[in-house]
């Protein structure tokens, strides 16, 4: 079973995403409420992918992604950014960072899993 880490500071959104990925995608979902927590869980549990919210207090999405990349233990985990507000310059910056995809909020819980799969090339 695929294991995916969902990182979002908004509890409700994180929970909906988690439920969506579990129910529709049928995956095992780990959750983290902050960038720091995401780094810990990613290193400790090595998920197959990470769905990472961009705007978070403290360590934001891009910073978290860079930190993941900097760690040999987590650098190969594909990351999809999830964002509600991105400036176009930021979006390019995200792409240039090398993320696997950029999804926007609000998302359709019935389709989130499909989009994640498409971005990651999962079948």
């Amino acid at each position, binding site marked *: 079973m695929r294991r995916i880490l969902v990182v979002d500071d908004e509890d409700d959104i994180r929970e909906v995403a988690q439920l969506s990925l579990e129910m529709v995608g049928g995956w095992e979902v780990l959750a983290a409420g902050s960038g720091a927590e995401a780094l810990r869980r990613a290193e400790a549990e090595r998920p197959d992918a990470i769905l990472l919210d961009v705007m978070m207090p403290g360590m934001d999405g891009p910073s978290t992604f860079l930190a993941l990349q900097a760690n040999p233990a987590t650098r190969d985990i594909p990351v999809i950014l999830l964002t509600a507000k991105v400036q176009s310059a*930021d979006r390019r910056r995200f792409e240039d960072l090398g993320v696997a995809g950029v999804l926007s909020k609000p998302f*359709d*819980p019935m389709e989130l899993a499909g989009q994640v799969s498409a971005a990651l090339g999962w079948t």
Partner: protein
Amino acid sequence: MSPSLSAAPHERRFLAGFAALLAFLVGLVALGYLSFARMADANRWSLHTYTVLSESQGMQEALVDMEAGFRGFILTGDAGAGPAWRERRDAFRAHLAAAERLTRDNAPQTARLHAVEALAGRWMAMQQATGFDVAANAQAREAARARGAGPDDVRARSAVMRQVRRLLDEVTDDESALLRRRVGRAAALERVTGAALVVGGLFAVALAVGLGLLVTRRSRSLAAANASLAAEIGERRLAQRAAERLGRQTELILESADEGICGVDVHGYATFLNPAAAALLGRAAADAIGRPVETVLPLEDEAGSHAGPVRDTLRDGATHRLSAGTLRRTDGSVFPVELVSAPVLEDGQIVGAVVTFRDVAERREVERMKDEFVSVVSHELRTPLTSLRGSLGLLAGGRAGEVSTSGQRLLDIAVQNTDRLVRLINDILDLERIRAGRVELEPRPVPAAELVRSAADLMEPMAEKGGVRLEADAPPVRVLADADRILQVLTNLISNAVKFSPAGSTVAVSARAEGGRALFEVRDRGRGIPAPMLEAIFERFHQVDSSDARQKGGTGLGLAICRGIVEQHGGRIWAESAPGDGSTFRFTLPLAGSTDASGGGPGVRSGSGDPQAFGTSPAPDAPLDRGGGVAARIATSPPGPPADASGPHRDSSDAGDGWDVGAPRAGISVRLPAGLLGGAARRVPLVEDDEDAGPGELERRVPSLLHPA
């Protein structure tokens, strides 16, 4: 009849008569003066003649006295005879000298008088030869008496005396004849003059009477002319007063206008500046007049200072607008301005322009604050909506356990309306960004056919669902456009057309080159749009029928967004309609110049990393399906139920609508060009954020495009 028409002949006759009268009177006066002069001359000559006669008389008397005195001495030997004789002799000489003086100009008289003088001299010498006048004693006197008593002497003296008398008579006669002649001439002239005066006087009186009549008639006609002139002046004054009143009114209006108003003549020189304009520009109105419009209304942009719209109006006679310009004041400061330049036409000729403008700094600021507010609010609304929509979606999708039929129905309503709310927020944000100019276009040469076909392909499923046939047609012209944005416009228009088309009808999408621009057209056979609404529908939240928003699922912003996009491309969008016979939406785009046609750079956008990007497609017709693989994989590969297969729990027409996440349906996405989807499969940005322009733009747009306004 106008009095001035008969004035010329009257005038000439009058002047001729007056001149004749004047000449005649002058002649008459001259004649009178001549006559008078002649008479005076004659009088003078009479006096002269009488004087000459008197002198002649004097001479004769003196001679007689001398003869008498001499004879008395011969008889009596009177001692006093000598002195008396000498005294008479001197008197004779004086008379003679006077007569000679008077007749100097008369040769015969002078000759006679000289003869008289000689004879008288001889006569006197004869008497003196006796020595009587110098005898000092009686003896001498006796001797003298004896010498003078000789009979020969007496005869000789008498003969000389007779000659002298005859000569003096001749002098007298000649002079008298002269006098008669002169007086006669004067009298004749006097008679002629008198007759001339009588005739001339009568003639002058007749002429004066004639002239008087003429003058009377003339003055009568002049009076009539004056009266009509006075009436005309009165009318004119009334008209002038009315015009003045109107002028004052116009002036008052211009002066009170809050907008700056500047009049410009056909050569581009300022002719008028109202107080508002003067205040806005910081320049006295009088100072502006006569200056070129570039100086008075210096619009600033990257290219420098200019007066573009005004010059355009003077050139083509059309109204030109500048909705976001910058004007420089005389002190160098600048302010944002909205400016309209309208032509002033006279008999179809451009005679100038009137420019109205206003300072929009305050409005801009208010708008900016409003837009920012809208943006923030909209954004903040999305966070709770995300979890709301997610939770409802899972419930409605039956993933959280079985739901009763009516519960399912309620959940579906909740999902649909949440989607609508999200669409609305997306559109508001989209429009706000376009209006704020924060959407940067990346125009490239794009085959119009490709845009038309892509849009038609995208909308095919929706059309099919509504039983509407889609026809696409476009010649191989290339436009300079941001392909994603124009696809957004086209799909929006097609979506509207399909929505309002009855089943079985056709929606035609086409593009063609016309008048140096590309003209896109979306035509439906729906119910049409009433004429008064044709412009209003492009405004925000404006729909032909207010119930449309609910029934058709639009946000009321689609056409406003379309207009924003098209205008940002430098094009124009409008609608034409015959109610009952459908509507036609048209918009124009600039054609890609031949030099641009081969260009396009390495990719649609930096970062797309796709060398086969849209803009560089070697064959305009080829790339339509090239991206299919990528897109198809995106849309069809999710595990679990495919997007379209949400089945009984979803209204499939709303699948993905309004969700930035997109979820393009397979049928739509398969035909998307690779460039539009943006690049290498590894980094396909499935979905975009809410910020514009990017390789993934279209995916984000696709859902919301399906049901725009």
